[in-house]
């Protein structure tokens, strides 16, 4: 038996790769200088490290290092991109487009902009989680200034067609922001080719430290932003605040490793994910959420019908996973992402997200499959819905007592 608990929640966060941690440590102690100190070697050393990291991040996504702005994480990057661009370009128009399955770090800034008088169109994805590009094209108006579509969805792992959406936006003169927090090291990003104007990155989803991220801001054609953090004018005025050298060094190292290893690593992870799905799919009434082919290899999101997600997570407590069940959130609402796909509430309540990563082993996957087989059966024996299903009752025709 593998060592438990087994971490299968790499989409929530990843451990820092030991090779990354090793590079960060000197910048906490002896190389502690402020990269903005221009007058001595402490500052010069720190600045050199920050600029090397900027090249490493730019290297993974094929852009100019000058187009990278350091932030505290993808949430801040999303806020800066969306609110910063909307406020700068509001003279051109006040309409924005996004998708219902975006992360809250995109949806909440959109809500804030609505309060400031902007208008936002929230597009529904198709049942497979992907955007219908014709619907996207039809949503663009003469007063549309910005569209925001995530590259890889955090819950279901589907990959949107950023290339085509970028072409549509560029042709219509609409700025295009992409939240790429979940895609670095998982899906290829080529900003020289993709017509993306703003892209958000996070370090801790890609084996770097928490608390650091970056925003790509295109220079040709130039994209302007209204700063959201005012102060010493760091990062060309777009994001003031002393740079966290050790964190930035960590993000650079993590992204460099991702660039070097993603091709081979992703094949190994895809093998493990497919092994997991083959193992789970032999259970009755297991439904895959999101398209299987246009999906990062790390993600499997499945609904175990007639079993509630939180109780399933309690049963498989040796596995660290996450659920779309309402019971795991404070709001008591099941996953809005699964609901936007048209999944009914029962299936949303019954969903488990498995996310696989660099340190997952085949033995762990096999153990997970075995554990789920045992406990899904046990919980179905407890489930009145399973009884009704087995007796041929269509649950959709039942008049439930609301509460």
């Amino acid at each position, binding site marked *: 038996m593998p060592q438990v608990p087994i971490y299968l929640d790499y989409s929530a966060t990843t451990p820092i790769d030991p090779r990354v941690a090793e590079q960060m440590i000197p910048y906490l102690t002896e190389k502690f200088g402020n990269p903005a100190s221009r007058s001595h070697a402490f500052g010069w050393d720190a600045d050199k490290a920050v600029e090397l990291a900027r090249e490493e991040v730019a290297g993974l996504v094929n852009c100019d290092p000058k187009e990278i702005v350091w932030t505290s994480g993808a949430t801040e990057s999303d806020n800066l991109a969306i609110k910063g661009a909307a406020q700068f370009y509001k003279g051109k128009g006040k309409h924005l487009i996004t998708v219902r399955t975006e992360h809250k770090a995109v949806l909440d800034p959109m809500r804030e902009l609505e309060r400031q008088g902007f208008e936002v169109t929230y597009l529904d994805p198709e049942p497979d989680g992907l955007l219908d590009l014709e619907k996207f094209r039809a949503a663009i108006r003469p007063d549309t200034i910005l569209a925001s579509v995530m590259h890889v969805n955090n819950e279901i792992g589907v990959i949107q067609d950023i290339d085509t959406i970028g072409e549509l936006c560029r042709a219509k003169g609409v700025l295009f922001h992409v939240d790429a927090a979940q895609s670095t090291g998982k899906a290829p990003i080529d900003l020289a080719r993709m017509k993306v104007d703003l892209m958000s990155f996070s370090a801790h989803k890609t084996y770097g430290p928490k608390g650091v991220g970056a925003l790509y801001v295109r220079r040709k054609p130039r994209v302007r932003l209204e700063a959201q953090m005012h102060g010493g004018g760091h990062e060309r005025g777009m994001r003031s605040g002393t740079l966290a050298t050790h964190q930035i060094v960590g993000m650079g190292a993590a992204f460099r490793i991702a660039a070097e290893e993603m091709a081979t690593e992703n094949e190994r992870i895809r093998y493990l994910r497919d092994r997991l799905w083959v193992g789970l799919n032999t259970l009755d009434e297991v439904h895959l959420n999101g398209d299987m082919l246009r999906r990062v290899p790390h993600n499997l999101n499945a609904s175990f019908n007639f079993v509630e997600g939180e109780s399933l997570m309690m049963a498989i407590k040796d596995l660290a996973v996450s659920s779309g069940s309402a*019971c*795991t959130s404070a709001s008591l609402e099941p996953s809005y992402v699964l609901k936007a796909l048209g999944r009914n509430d029962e299936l949303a309540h019954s969903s488990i997200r498995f996310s696989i990563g660099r340190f997952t082993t085949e033995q762990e996957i096999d153990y997970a499959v075995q554990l789920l087989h045992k406990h899904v059966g046990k919980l179905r024996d*407890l489930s009145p819905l399973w009884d*009704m299903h087995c007796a041929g009752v269509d649950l959709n025709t039942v008049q439930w007592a609301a*509460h």
Partner: protein
Amino acid sequence: MSYSDKVLDHYENPRNVGALEAGDASVGTGMVGAPACGDVMKLQIKVNADGIIEEARFKTYGCGSAIASSSLVTEWVKGKTLDQALEIKNTAIAEELALPPVKIHCSILAEDAIKAAVADYRNKHEVVDAGYAACNPTAA
């Protein structure tokens, strides 16, 4: 979410799981909740000639607290008269299991399940219940 030891105990060793013959005149069946809300409880009681609940069974779709609440009430209703069973309040269930505020609705559902099971039994025996409509999902 960290659970109390009592919730974990009921969740891991649920008491009185199963079903009684719903058509039996001595059995009352209550089904409350909705799949869309994430919890459905089915509680059945078997009442003897003296009007005492001598058996109880449950099946629950829901989170750990919902399973524990229903398991607990199967223990509590046994040996009680119908009127005594109706006196079981959700606050007592929540207190016994040390449910966090976000899980109080699970204890309310368990109280409702008792009411529904008693109402179903009484309907069978043509005793008019004071206003509680029995939930009978399979009839729809």
